[in-house]
């Protein structure tokens, strides 16, 4: 059930009616019931996977919670009698008990995710290795597992929660139904965002009273998401697919246009989907974390990654990057290399090692193919380079005397946008790394004039192209206006006639210009007269 389908709208409407008819304290149960209904309707028996994650998460965190509670009680009871060392020892014992539980839970859940998502990738690579090294054609068969809906998202979210409980960031949730809802909450199950328990739980279980203002804001947010997804992203997709499928024949400038459109498409699609998630949640009075902060206005790649898919970045930062950089082993390694290789290298080692791991993992997160790994590592290379080259930049900017000027900011935004757009070609090239490199090279070197006829051949006729470009322009205007604060709230403050007029126009734009349904070919209807 896609978030843009009528079925989802009907499903949400049903959930809303029952939700607000229920007494406040039972409302989270309505959400839980509908979340499981959503999951079962969409992928049937695979609900077992999310159940396993939920149960293991619940049991693990409850055990850890128990250990910490006993530790607290023991320490409080024996406050006077215990020496500092004894206290330390006891704490260490508790910690290692909790750590064992956490590690087991992480192994189980990431193990399941790993097998389902990466087993075939691993098998393909083993086959390849055997072929090249031993010339063996005894290929291992693929497993072709079915990926349960949203498994990457709910696994990351639940494991973040397990780690947080382990570090004592907050206490374990005692109500299993609340935890089950946190894992399976239907508006964010397909594509996130990856919410943190302490954030999401504030509103998810509250059963907020109906608030017409935030309800309207939610509806506007959904409308905007539908516009981005249906009018812009799905329309541009026709051209992007057309150009990429014909990348050997299409001229470079057509590919450059596809690279640009793909950036718009993926932003419209992903952030539009998140808009729908946030909007739908608002209808239930639930606040979901923002996942995008106008990323195309970033002035550096590092900044871009703080503004695009924010919750994934935060997850990697908190649970992988940071723990690696401050882990004992890495620090020892760093110390040793300071002594043996050099101060500068040793000092940088922890951060670059952690960055490498994060970007390798981020690459794999996006897909079990080498082109995604290459994509992730290219991000790493660019980020490392820009850190190392900072003194050079500073000097250059000093010479140009434009640091902080409008022109400099524009240049930085432009540069960052195109770096990210070209990196995205790896995501676009289903044919692998080689294909991505050909497209990038061609789009930069093979310059040719664009004609409307050829653009139409690749998938967008003049009218569709016009609507697509106007859609991009509207997204740009929206982003610029967003700097002044929430647009949805601003609309609510308009005089009623203007507000209703605007709403009607926006709805009609989505209904008419959305790329959905079967399309219409008058000829089909004419030839079928008898």
């Amino acid at each position, binding site marked *: 059930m896609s978030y843009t389908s009528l079925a989802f709208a009907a499903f949400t409407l049903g959930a809303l009616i029952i939700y607000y008819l229920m007494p406040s304290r039972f409302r989270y149960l309505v959400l839980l019931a509908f979340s499981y209904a959503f999951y079962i309707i969409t992928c049937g028996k695979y609900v077992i996977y999310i159940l396993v994650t939920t149960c293991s998460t619940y049991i693990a965190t409850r055990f850890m919670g128990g250990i910490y509670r006993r530790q607290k009680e023991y320490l409080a009871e024996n406050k006077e009698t215990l020496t500092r060392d004894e206290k330390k020892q006891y704490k260490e014992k508790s910690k290692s008990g909790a750590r064992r539980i956490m590690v087991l839970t992480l192994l189980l859940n990431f193990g399941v995710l790993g097998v389902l998502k990466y087993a075939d990738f691993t098998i393909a690579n083993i086959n390849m290795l055997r072929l090249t090294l031993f010339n063996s054609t005894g290929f291992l068969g693929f497993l072709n597992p079915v990926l349960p809906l949203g498994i990457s998202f709910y696994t990351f979210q639940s494991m973040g929660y397990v780690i947080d409980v382990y570090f004592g960031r907050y206490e374990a949730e005692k109500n299993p139904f609340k935890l089950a809802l946190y894992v399976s909450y239907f508006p964010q199950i397909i594509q996130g965002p990856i919410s943190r328990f302490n954030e999401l739980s504030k509103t998810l279980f509250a059963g907020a009273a109906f608030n017409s203002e935030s309800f309207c804001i939610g509806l506007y947010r959904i409308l905007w998401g539908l516009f981005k997804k249906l009018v812009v992203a799905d329309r541009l997709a026709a051209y992007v697919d057309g150009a990429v499928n014909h990348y050997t024949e299409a001229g470079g400038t057509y590919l450059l246009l596809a690279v640009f459109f793909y950036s718009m498409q993926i932003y419209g699609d992903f952030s539009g989907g998140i808009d729908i998630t946030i909007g739908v949640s608002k209808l239930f009075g639930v606040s979901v974390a923002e996942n995008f902060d106008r990323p195309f206005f970033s002035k550096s790649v590092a900044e871009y990654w703080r503004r695009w898919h924010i919750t994934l970045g935060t997850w990697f930062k908190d649970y992988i990057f940071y723990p690696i950089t401050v882990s004992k082993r890495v620090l020892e390694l760093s110390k040793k290399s300071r002594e043996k290789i050099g101060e500068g290298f040793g000092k940088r080692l922890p951060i670059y090692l952690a960055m490498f791991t994060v970007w390798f993992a981020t690459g794999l997160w996006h897909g079990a193919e080498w082109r995604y790994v290459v994509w992730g590592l290219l991000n790493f290379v660019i980020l490392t380079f820009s850190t190392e080259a900072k003194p050079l930049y500073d000097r250059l900017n000093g010479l140009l005397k434009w640091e902080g000027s409008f022109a400099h900011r524009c240049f930085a935004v432009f540069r960052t946008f195109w770096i990210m757009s070209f990196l995205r070609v790896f995501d676009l090239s289903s044919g692998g790394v080689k294909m991505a490199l050909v497209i990038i090279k061609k789009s930069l070197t093979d310059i040719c004039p664009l004609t409307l006829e050829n653009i139409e051949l690749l998938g967008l006729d003049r009218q569709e192209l016009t609507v697509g470009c106007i859609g991009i322009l509207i997204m740009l205007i929206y982003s610029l206006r967003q700097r002044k604060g929430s647009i949805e709230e601003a609309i609510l403050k308009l005089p009623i006639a203007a507000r209703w007029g605007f709403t*009607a126009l926006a709805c*009609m734009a989505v*209904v008419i210009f959305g790329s959905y349904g079967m399309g*219409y070919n008058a000829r089909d209807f004419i030839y*079928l007269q*008898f």
Partner: protein
Amino acid sequence: MKKLPRFIAAAALAILLTVLLDHIFIPKYISENQDGSITREFYIQADRPEVIFLGASTVHYCISPDYLYKCSGITSYDRSNASQTLWQSYYLLKDTLTVSKPKLVALDVSFLKNGEEFIEEPSNRKVIEHMRDPVSKLGAVLSSAGDFEQPAGYFIPVLRYHSRWKDLKEEDFRYAFNAPCVTYDGYLMDSSIPEEQHIYEPEPIDDPSFAPKAEEYLDRIIELCKNEGIELLLMKTPTFVNSWHTEYDEALEKKAGSNGIRYINFSPLADEMGIRVRTDYIDDGEHMNISGAHKFTEYLGEYINNNYAPASDEDEVLKKKWSEKLGAYEKAAAEGMAAWEKAYEKYADGAE
């Protein structure tokens, strides 16, 4: 709760806008493709018809209700469409019953051999999208729509046709709410004679059985007519196509006999009616032109009067309406016949 009136107003506005868009975006079938108007015009033109003709496209090319009224005093309507399946005929009949109850239903059985594999979206749309009774319409949609179709699009047509924004013409706006009638009580007048014609020899068939789904709905039509006290005639309109076989006739005669109704295949009687395959059809002996339609309609009227004698309505208002309609029809028919004669001369010249 004090915002409730606003919510209601917003919902009303939304519905109003949707209806407006529906009417603009739905294809009009006025200047071309007129067969798409048959279902819509039923609710405008039909004046309590005593006889309802159901079936596929041969029906609305060979039966002219106005001419039937002229010849035999029977009032009727063609509720047939291109590739109309038996289940669509069933739901159209149910829909008809919500408007007025006919005395006789005459069902063309040509599509009994066609199962679901023959349906295509455009013909589904033409039959169903203008149906008015929501229950019958839902039944028609659920029984007809392919997996690739979005059932909601039949009730909110703009969801299906929104991408016509590129193709919208002046007539889409002009006829959004008051489209004229282009059929004559469901009859599509055509005066042409084909330049060439191929009549194919019958081929033997392997499997003389009907499509199960089609037969199921034939039984449901029989049942419905029985329950409603409506007489039912199963008929095969006169054609010269090779897709009909005597095995079908035998099966239908058996079915009709066991249900106490009549079945007649008019094809072998074409000669008796004076129908000439070369000049009374617009194609290879399947769909009739005006000349053929008048010949068949006259014969059919006699057949109905002899076998059913549907007592003619004495309602003066209704009589007046029908004679007015007949006046308009005769004017058009005169032109149509003149055009046919011209075509006939051209054909006769060519034949010599």
